């Protein structure tokens, strides 16, 4: 079998699957977002107007944004700090690491048991606490993998030159972690949409108004089967997510080029 033939054979199933289950349906969604689903008539940006005008969409978008704006910076700093603190290998550090990861592997049912006992109510702050407690361990591992890639010689050289721990972290370690930091950020960004899971376990399908997230409004539209709003809302979300990530990536890329 020729080389080219084999490559095509290996890559084709993945491309076909992505196309059938993700890409083509999504293109169809973009198209349908400009039509009225019941009459099939062209609606221009009408569906988008409906979505933007909807009070509950604005509430959900604002809540989701607020949740991200608080949880992502807190988790970025917290997980990095713990990773730096635990980067030296020792038995105690190993157990500390397992401890930080524990909430991540704790099944949903266990977490909901805790929520029930720890908190009387389930509002925004409680959700934030549970979410950060649960996922910080994952990002700590990602940071640790980046720290492991920073050559040890750099550390030795810095100490030989008389730099203290603090100077080493600030001037050598952190600048070398930009790439990993970006990966962490992207994961946090994607995962913050999944906070629906924690909310579902804490409160079921009908949460308090201040933790009513985008996933909830989509679920509601799904139940009412408002296809028009769903497709316009989905396209709107997708475009803003992709544009935002692209902007962050380009900013980082520009910084890297400037640094050489």
């Amino acid at each position, binding site marked *: 079998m020729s080389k080219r033939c084999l490559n095509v054979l290996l890559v084709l199933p993945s491309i076909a699957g992505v196309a059938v289950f993700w*890409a083509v*349906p999504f293109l169809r969604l973009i198209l349908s977002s400009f039509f009225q689903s019941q009459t099939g008539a062209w609606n221009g940006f009408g569906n988008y107007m409906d979505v933007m005008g909807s009070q509950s969409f604005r509430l959900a978008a604002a809540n989701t944004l607020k949740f991200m704006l608080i949880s992502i910076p807190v988790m970025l700093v917290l997980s990095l700090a713990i990773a730096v603190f635990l980067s030296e290998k020792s038995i105690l550090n190993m157990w500390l690491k397992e401890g930080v990861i524990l909430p991540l592997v704790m099944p949903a049912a266990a977490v909901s048991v805790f929520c029930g006992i720890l908190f009387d109510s389930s509002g925004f702050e409680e959700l934030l606490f549970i979410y950060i407690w649960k996922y910080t361990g994952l990002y700590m591992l990602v940071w640790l993998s980046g720290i492991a*890639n920073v050559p040890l010689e750099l550390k030795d050289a810095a100490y030989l030159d008389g730099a203290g721990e603090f100077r080493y972290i600030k001037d050598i370690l952190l600048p070398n972690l930009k790439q990993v930091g970006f990966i962490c950020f992207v994961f946090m960004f994607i995962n913050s949409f999944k906070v629906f899971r924690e909310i579902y376990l804490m409160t079921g399908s009908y949460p308090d108004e201040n933790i009513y997230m*985008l996933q909830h409004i989509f679920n509601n539209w799904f139940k009412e089967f408002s296809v028009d709003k769903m497709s316009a809302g989905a396209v709107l979300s997708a475009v803003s*997510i992709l544009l935002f990530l692209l902007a962050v990536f380009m900013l980082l890329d520009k910084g890297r080029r400037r640094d050489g």
Partner: protein
Amino acid sequence: MKRAGKGMKLLLIFVLFYPLLFLLAGSLTGEMEISGWVLFPQYPTAVSYVELLFDIPEFYVLFWNSVSYVICIIAGQLAIAVPAAWALTNIRPALRKVIIVADIAVAVLPFQVRMLPEYLVLKDLNLLDCPAGIILPEVFSALPVLIMYYSFSNQPKALKESARVDGATEFQVFYKVSLPVAVPAIATCVILALLEYWNMIEQPLMFIKNKSYWPLALFSPGDAEYGMGVVFAMAFFLSVFVLLIFMLLQKYFEEGLSTISKE
């Protein structure tokens, strides 16, 4: 100073593991005793575990549902993503770039965006309300393809070239040279998928009405008639179960993450 640091760490370890201890204590406590934060039950009893394992059929069904979902999805993802990612490192750069960008775009979209399109596809394929409808879309996830691609492309080029010079066929290069080096990255995919699909809630909640196909994550013990002891026993059992798998793969997971996060 150093000793104080050690003491602090021991205390921290205790705090971090406290939830697990709490679940264990709760599960060993007799029904009557549970009234708040107990650490040492006065009359330890395994009755909750007996009840969980023998008297609650739903638990069995949902537990095995979750296990089979996770196994099917992970096996499928690896079978599709690993060969595809390796082939991606060989094809023309222009074509590769298009595929990678499309994969990234698909991988970052949250469920709220995917929900309606996914529903329509499943409806067309007659896969609604059946386990395959949950498994198949996830098998073709783009994330494992990306992880494996970055891991393969960070392998030294000389590795493949020297195998080719030695007369290995393309398939042998993949199977005998690239694949063994990529084991940590595979472990990374497995762990990420395990964490993701063990706790999968959105898809089954929306696409599966028949509750006998539900995964364990949707089992809400709160509204059932079981005692708190059983809930604790279940939570403890599941925590330890996943934690053990995780610890088993952790070394590779960390190694795999570093091969990916290299420039």
